[in-house]
């Protein structure tokens, strides 16, 4: 029963949700763009690299200008550059998308480590903005409505992603490219262009995510700031069955696991830190193991399209 009580204490503490909200923010930024990319047919494992690249470039942007807005713009740029390499190499040339993504992740990690030592970066978190009334909601109010202002970009990015995919012609073409590229091609859609654009969009939202990571969550850059959370964002898309609603839900659940990781030691003396570190990843794997078979991925997910070749 101690375990249950401890868990209850952790769940009923506002700071759990504050932590979770920060993790969820990062995951949702990354996952909403990744969701679009996957709907177009790409599993974009370079999301991890996009986040790290963006965190670094936004740190550089802020160091130079001391402006959060410039920092965020630099972050978006940093995410888009990675997206550019991924998109052009996997959907203009036909290099394997996983191979490109993986190589990019390793390259960015090396670059970040190298440049971080060569450049002095001075950054901090952005100032908090409290939303009147709403922040008084018990337990979760502060977590969602009393945050540094870049946090609120979330409330733009998620609806925009949905709107793009389901309410615009572009989104229709993206979905067609992910489901049946041959049919899309015959209908006059440039499949690989749409896929590249979807990756660029993932670069954009991941860029925001990287800036968010820096200016809202950690305040200071080091090469370990992302450490696998990009992969959790990808897992959230799968967990969510390639729906945006499910993806966001997955992000929140995985973020709660990340948040609980920080809270649980206060209630359990003996829990090994390593288990806590692994906890969110285990939850993610478990989540996918339960749900992966019940959902239907886009039919052409991870399949390259070359006109005239299957």
């Amino acid at each position, binding site marked *: 029963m101690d375990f249950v009580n401890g868990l209850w204490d952790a769940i009923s503490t506002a700071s759990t949700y504050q932590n979770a909200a920060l993790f969820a923010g990062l995951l949702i930024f990354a996952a909403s763009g990744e969701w679009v990319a996957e709907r177009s047919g790409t599993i974009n494992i370079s999301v991890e690299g996009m986040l790290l690249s963006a965190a670094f470039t936004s740190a550089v942007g802020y160091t130079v200008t001391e402006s959060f807005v410039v920092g965020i713009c630099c972050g978006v740029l940093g995410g888009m550059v990675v997206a550019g390499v991924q998109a052009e190499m996997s959907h203009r040339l036909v290099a394997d998308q996983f191979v490109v993504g993986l190589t990019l992740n390793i390259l960015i990690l*090396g670059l970040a480590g190298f440049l971080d*030592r060569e450049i002095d970066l001075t950054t901090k978190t952005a100032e908090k903005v409290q939303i009147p009334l709403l922040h008084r909601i018990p337990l979760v109010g502060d977590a969602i409505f009393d945050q540094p202002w870049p946090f609120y970009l979330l409330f733009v990015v998620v609806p925009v992603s949905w709107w793009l995919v389901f309410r615009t012609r572009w989104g229709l073409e993206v979905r067609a490219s992910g489901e049946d590229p041959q049919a899309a091609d015959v209908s006059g859609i440039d499949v690989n262009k749409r896929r590249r654009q979807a990756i660029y969009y993932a670069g954009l939202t991941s860029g925001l995510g990287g800036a968010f990571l820096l200016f809202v969550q950690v305040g200071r850059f080091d090469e370990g700031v992302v450490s*696998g959370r990009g992969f959790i964002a990808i897992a959230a898309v799968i967990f969510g069955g390639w729906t945006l609603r499910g993806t966001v839900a997955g992000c929140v659940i995985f973020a709660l696991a990340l948040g609980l990781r920080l809270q649980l030691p206060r209630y359990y003396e003996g829990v090994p830190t*390593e288990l806590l570190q692994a906890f969110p990843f*285990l939850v993610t*794997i478990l989540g996918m193991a339960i749900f*992966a078979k019940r959902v239907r991925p886009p039919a052409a997910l991870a399949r390259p399209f*070359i006109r005239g070749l299957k």
Partner: protein
Amino acid sequence: MMRQGEWLGLYVASVAVALGVSAILIRATGGDSLAVFDALIEGSLTGSGRWGLTLGAAAPMLLVALGTIVSARAGLVNIGQEGQLLIGTAFAVYFGFRIGGPGPFNLVVLLVAGSIGGALWAGVAGVLRFRRGVPEVLSTLLLVTVASQVTAYALGREWLLLASNSVGARNNVSEQLAEDNRLPNLNIFGNQIPSSFFLGVVFAVIVAFALARTVWGFQLRMLGRSPQAAQRAGVSQRSFGMRAMLTSGAFAGLAGTVMFAGGGFQFSNYKFVPGFSGNIGWTGLLVALVARERAMPAIAVAIAFGALRTGSSFVGSTGVEARVTDVIEGLLVLALLVPPAVMFIRDRRRARAATTART
């Protein structure tokens, strides 16, 4: 003839671009790029005794790459070798010290336990894939983080891996492997060539032969290229894929074990330490990709990447951060992905032009 020329040209151009970008980066951060490249060559080849070390560093990369080749040929994207390598090594260390025994026997125990450990960790991803439908590309990645936490946990517990004399020390490390339990070096022309490299070469030959010349390899390739045709032929995706996954993990575990027990390049002085894997799992994976999933070319690529690794320890003296070699490595791999992609499209377009007469 024309094709060979095109290949060569493309590869030379790609490498030149990658090195050029690296040089620009070094210049931009105030370093001397020529000095860095000189240091890389001296540290990996021309320095005294260095090429033996380079082969020692190449050996585990080669082993990881061989495992990657097996799983990739079966159409599986196992990219969690870093974690499989860690768990494999942990198994080797645990059973090696538990079972003990005379040198050669213990060495065999190490190698077998390491392979089994790596295989089991890859097997987790395999079960998730074939029973639960979880894409292995993601589960293997996530399991890397879990593996590093699991081994960190084990390293913090005396009943698992922690050396009794290092309890309370700043860093958790395992016992050191006794001298007669280590993989021996062979002295060739004044260089200490680690036997692990020969082990890698032998396995490369075996893998190359098995893939090209055996029924197993034939069916594995068929599975990777056309799961439907394979299923018709009675090659079950589940059992064949699972075996490929286990083999792949076993190679990663073996790679960790030779890092632990092998001579040549010193990974951690015959101890299991936090951060033991040192990105060898990732690098080995890249070796397989650059070698385009073929075993024999992987030997050469592994040596080249091993050279980057040993060379990097000389880079520090030039005043440039040694991590620059990670950047060079990444850029090289990225650039080397271009020629095969270009040639693939060209080949297919030409074939199409020649065969699809009029449609």
